[in-house]
């Protein structure tokens, strides 16, 4: 037992240290009703889990301490094979816990399929989010505008994301607004999110998509309705139109800076219906995938990194567009 002590102390210390940071962890700091529901469910389950851990640890500590082999050992009963009563108890208790967890889980699953309860009579803003290695293209079909790698949304209004991908399977995730969903080529998945506060939230693809996966991110800016409308109308007048040539270039794997357009790509392709568009575009542009260790791949990578660096530099020099 003496030997176990440092172990327990250490564990306790770690737990205290980490729990104290809880309030700052993004998943437990949601800024919208979807994330809030998920946080509630998580905290609810943590309660049960803590109970289970305490029971098991207390029992383990008690039994191990009491029945350790020592002089004057008491209560040894080598042929004790089982007990129907005890076993029934520990079949029933987990069943009860499972039911207690299943009910709110199922409720939340169903509730997350639609827009949040409190704003369900509002018409949701529809945004198509398309993942292309390793960027995000956002289309506002009703506003007829398109952005790359950033999003503007009005606060307190549900947003319906229609997710798809031009190539690898990605996962659209804005942790502070709510849980993720996959974006897949030839498929359309739907995800409702909503921001209750103004601010900038980090969003990303969380599903591994190869070399550029780590930087497959975007920013979500939530703003007042008025500001949003203003941004939309400015974009419509100021931003250039998206051409098919330019869009095809976006189909090449790589990173690009944030972009804004006053028209959308939905006129010529919806990747949810046409899974191989990006592959065909790459063919048209003469792009050939390269074996990762070959010289050609290394050169391509070097070029890509230089471009990225340039981009970062230009961004830090404050050439912002529609912020």
């Amino acid at each position, binding site marked *: 037992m003496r030997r176990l002590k440092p172990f327990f102390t250490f*564990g306790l210390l*770690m737990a205290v240290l*980490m729990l104290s*940071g809880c309030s*700052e962890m993004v*998943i437990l700091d949601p800024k919208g009703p979807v*994330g809030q529901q*998920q946080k509630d*469910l*998580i905290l609810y*389950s*943590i309660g049960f*889990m803590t109970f289970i*851990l305490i029971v*098991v640890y207390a029992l*383990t500590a008690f*039994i*191990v301490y009491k*029945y*350790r*082999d020592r002089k004057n*050992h008491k209560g*040894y009963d*080598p*042929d*004790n*094979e*089982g*007990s129907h009563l005890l*076993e029934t108890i*520990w*079949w029933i208790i987990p069943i009860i816990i*499972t039911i207690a967890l299943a009910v709110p*889980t*199922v409720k*939340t*699953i169903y*509730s997350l*399929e639609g827009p949040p309860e409190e704003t369900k009579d509002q018409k949701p803003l529809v945004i198509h989010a398309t993942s292309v290695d390793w960027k995000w293209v956002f289309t506002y079909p009703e506003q007829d505008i398109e952005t790359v790698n950033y999003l503007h949304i009005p606060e307190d209004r549900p947003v319906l994301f229609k997710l798809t991908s031009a*190539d*690898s399977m990605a996962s659209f*995730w804005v942790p502070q607004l709510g*849980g*993720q969903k*996959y974006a*897949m080529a*030839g498929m359309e998945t739907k995800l409702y999110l909503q921001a209750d506060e103004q601010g900038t939230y980090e969003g990303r693809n*969380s599903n*591994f998509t*190869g*070399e550029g*996966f*780590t930087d497959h991110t975007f920013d979500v800016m939530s703003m007042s309705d008025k500001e949003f409308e203003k941004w939309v109308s400015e974009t419509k007048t100021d931003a250039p139109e998206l051409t098919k040539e330019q869009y095809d270039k976006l189909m090449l794997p790589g990173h690009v800076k944030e972009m804004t357009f006053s028209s959308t790509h939905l006129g010529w392709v919806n990747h949810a219906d046409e*899974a191989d568009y990006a592959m065909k575009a790459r063919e048209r542009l003469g792009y050939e*995938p390269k*074996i*990762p*260790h*070959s010289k050609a791949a*290394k050169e391509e990578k070097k070029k890509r990194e230089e471009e990225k660096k340039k981009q970062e530099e230009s961004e830090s020099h404050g050439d912002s567009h529609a912020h």
Partner: protein
Amino acid sequence: MKWDEFFVTGDPLIYGADVSIVLTMVGILFYLTKFKKWKWLWDEWLTTVDHKKLGIMYIVSAVLMMFRGGVDALLMRAQLAVPEANFLDSQHYNEIFTTHGTIMIIFMAMPFLIGLINVVVPLQIGARDVAYPYLNAVSFWTFFIGAMLFNISFVIGGSPSAGWTSYMPLASNELSPGPGQNYYLLGLQIAGIGTLLTGINFLVTILKMRAPGMTLFRMPMFTWSSLVTMVIIIFAFPILTVALVLMTFDRLFGSHFFTLQGEGMDMLWANLFWLWGHPEVYIVILPAFGMFSEIISTFSKKTLFGYKAMIWSMLLIAGYSFLVWVHHFFTMGSGAVVNSVFSITTMAIGIPTGVKIFNWLFTMYRGRIEFTTPMLWSLGFIVNFVVGGVTGVMLAMAAADYQYHNTYFLVSHFHYVLIAGTVFACFAGLIFWYPKMFGYKLNERIGKWVFWIFTIGFNVCFMPQYFLGLDGMPRRVYTYSEESGWGPLNMVSTIGGFMMGIAFVILVYNIYYSFRFAKRETTGDAWNGRTLEWSTPSPMPPFYNFAKIPEVTGLDHFWKQKQAGKVEKLKAEDIKKIHMPSNSGVPFIMASFFFVAGFGMVFDWMWMGIAGMIGVFGTLIYRSFEYDDGYYVSVEEVIETEKISK
């Protein structure tokens, strides 16, 4: 194909690996030649069909693979220790986590367990060997060759980098060109053949080769867990076989199962993969459960609590294991009904698992607990596995999983299950049966150091990852920004990872130390064991295992005999001649042809693939025409071996 595409170049790590591989090879060749060990190697190991020797070879390979996978892990942890590190680039990092995952599951955990099953199960059921000893050798060599094929990708052609799950279309030719992904496909396919054969072999062995009197409900729990595992293998592995074939066709023959073109369906791969992948989790956890049952019972000196409940819960888990695969992709948008159903089945799998935990605890209740190293690992298992278990239930709640998915929360969860479950069991089992295999115990003092360093390191490494997950850190990123604030916890995690590395080194040192200095053990019953394997002599019972097949009268037969002071002594007149299978070099040669075929297909050199397959079929035909009925061990030889005084 150009040379710069064939040999991996341009990285000091790779050059280091090249040099060390060549040096090791030269060293081995030199040693074998100098000490004239070639014949010994061929006669005793390469051609053996003895389940104990095959088991040891499995374990040795698994420990080597643990080293390889562990180095991968440490490289990853080194890269992630501080934000924006440049130790590894993205491609290299991707390769390393892919090989880490694949190797640890397919080439470390499974062979380690199968190795222990090989050594122990025939002894536990009182059999002279497995049902198909020859097939057992085929199993081992195909596994071994699959592992080797997978491993050479590191220096020739480049490693796979699409993750051990290899989701399509990322793993397709267009997005992951080159031989890397082919290594994954062929390596797993070849090793998978061996696993399926093991499944059939041990199922028949356990069903048909038990000693007289050993009814199903008198079998030791480890044997039971092996039986259930084999059933899962038999139904799960064909799914993997098909999935791999389909992806191989997509990559090599232009089919469109999972591709972007031709209306292929990437979601189908995810489904097939996890239809195998989830049962696979139970393939590597159930034998672990079985081992802990044996060890906890032995060192509490008490019958297992709730023997029948243990079996039923295991059967329930096995059944459930095929009904939960969707929980690996709740975020695919399958709709509320599907997600709800799979949430509930997944949570329900926690019920029998929980029951087992309590049964283990109450096996110790009213026992006399002795804290040997295997027992420490078992206690460590209970304490740590529960953490993995409860977070598993949290992940099972689909609505919450939308937030945990693809984060370090998940990473931490499955390491808590697989390390605290499977790896702890591998260590516990290895130490527990070590005297049976080698005739002496591993040093207990060093062993306890290993346990504490490893267990503390494990918690230091993975506990922070739960919190990183809740803080939104996605898995598989090769670096992260300073502003994310993930730096400190990652540093802690890395320290823990290296502690585990140090523990592994000490474990290996312990093997050397005990080889040199440990007291030799002569009774064959090093731990005051309960089951039949302890009634045989150590080290390594003679190749025929039992001079006289025991008759079993109940659970823990050997223990009860000892308690009653009625252990039978072997008498010369009881001994009859023993029929044994002959050694064969064919499995090794067949596996070598598999290597040729696999290597050819990896590089899309079809002539080589076809040549290799012709070789494989040639060995099959050769074997079919070979009527070798084995041989008989004479009574005199048995008496001589057993040293019975007349």
